[in-house]
């Protein structure tokens, strides 16, 4: 298992796409949180006591989707470049490979979400200071924000991971992963109305930012909804990963 873990972490850290995704995410955060919400913010926006808390949660809700691509590519590249045959021949149990990938993806998602959680309000503080603004006193519930942001980033990553493990087609998984939260759930929301809170991406976004969307369960309950999706997805993807031909 340790061997599988070492291999998966090395896979993640030896491709340029991982670094590109992290840098792009941080640049996006810097642009939105530092420039738009900080340097160019309207003075009235700076009176909110939740300004910095919202910078944390909004950043993870947005760039968490991008960061999840690193995990998607970790699995997608294996099938695209057929290195999966080496991976599965080197191990004596397929589930070990899947578990190692799951741990690698989760670790990456949690660490990068943690960085984004604190980088975003930092950018806003720097932006406002550079412009000479003063932010009003802030309410920042560290533990609540922290678990919600990390859970959101992890949830996105797991959705992407499950999707690519089931589809095994990189382009198909990327398109699906983008279309479902950005278009699919919005359209479904018109039909489901209040029940939109039970859709997977809406639920994971609501964990981090429950106030943004309204009519939602509290963060803890939304997290349970997400966990159900992840659990079902993992069971399905594990069964398929173990039983299907490796191509």
């Amino acid at each position: 298992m340790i061997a599988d873990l070492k291999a998966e972490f090395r896979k993640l850290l030896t491709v340029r796409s991982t670094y590109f995704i992290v840098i792009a995410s941080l640049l996006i955060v810097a642009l939105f949180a530092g420039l738009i919400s900080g340097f160019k913010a309207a003075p009235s926006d700076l009176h909110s006591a939740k300004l910095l808390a919202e910078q944390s949660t909004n950043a993870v809700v947005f760039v968490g989707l991008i960061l999840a691509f690193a995990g998607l590519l970790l699995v997608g590249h294996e099938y695209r470049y057929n290195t999966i045959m080496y991976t599965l021949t080197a191990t004596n149990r397929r589930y070990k490979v899947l578990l190692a990938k799951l741990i690698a993806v989760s670790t990456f998602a949690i660490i990068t979400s943690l960085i984004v959680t604190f980088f975003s309000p930092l950018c806003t503080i720097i932006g406002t200071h550079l412009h000479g603004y003063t932010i009003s006193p802030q309410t920042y519930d560290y533990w609540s924000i922290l678990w919600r942001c990390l859970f959101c980033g992890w949830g996105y990553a797991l959705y992407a991971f499950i999707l690519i493990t089931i589809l095994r087609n990189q382009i198909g998984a990327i398109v699906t992963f983008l279309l479902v939260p950005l278009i699919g759930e919005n359209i479904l929301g018109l039909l489901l109305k209040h029940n939109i809170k039970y859709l997977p991406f809406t639920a994971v976004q609501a964990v981090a930012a429950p106030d943004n969307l309204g009519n939602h369960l509290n963060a803890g309950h939304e997290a349970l909804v997400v966990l159900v999706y992840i659990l079902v997805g993992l069971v399905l993807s594990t069964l398929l990963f173990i039983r299907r031909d490796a191509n």
Partner: protein
Amino acid sequence: MITVEHLAKSYKKKQAVSDLSFKVETGKVTGFLGPNGAGKSTTMRLMLGLDTGGGKTMFDGKRLHEYDRPAQMVGILLEAKAFHPTRKARDHLRILADAGGISRSRVDEVLSEVGLTEVAKSRPGKFSLGMSQRLGIAAAILGKPKYLMLDEPANGLDPEGIAWLREFLKSYADQGNAVFVSSHGLSEIAQMADNVVVIGKGKLIADTSITELLAENGHTGIFVRSPKLAVLERALKAGKATVTHGNGGLRVSGLTTDELGKLAFESSIPIYELSPQKASLEEVFLELTAGSQEFATKKETV
């Protein structure tokens, strides 16, 4: 020894591999031959447990995945370009070393063995097919496995590379390992393999040594040229030999070269050429797999 027993695999209505059984002996190179679409790659994938299907493959009496470190038991090369194009060659091998529980020092050793030390830090996306094959071979031998399973390893290699591969695989087998190699390069197989497994349409056609295969299936004989062909032909037929015409001479079977030479001398027939003829592996292969080609070319008649 690798023991393959009753392998079977079907895709929807097509039977890709059917009740295939054979053995791959240690200390020998075993060639794996078959026309395109015969099921060679599928067979290899089934043997490795990459594809699911019927039958079983035992490596020294155990299934591959019963070993703690399968990568140290079997080294594989099933596809030349099986690597991430922008991951450095050395990193690609380090990942395989990590996954297989193999010492990282082996990475530089195998890169040196296959002649890729200078491009160890390069991204293999721009490698030629020959360089990719070398990287694949490096990956296969990384864990010093007892068994090597290689699918078309000579594809894209230059003549020097092919000669190196041939000698390498022979010496690898000589060290008590087994090499199972599929190839369309029949002359290569003829030069390096001790045994051969031939399949067609997913079914076993032959599982024997190269020597026996050629002896049992090839048309051996003697080619002879003479200015007195008609006289020679009569003399040979009187001597109970079988004679056919071709290439400006006679093809004779049923006599040794010594006997033919003596007969010609006694009949005062001058001989310009007298050479033993052996069937090539290619001839035997084509004869054995006739009718088993999945994608045969259409022969046009003029």
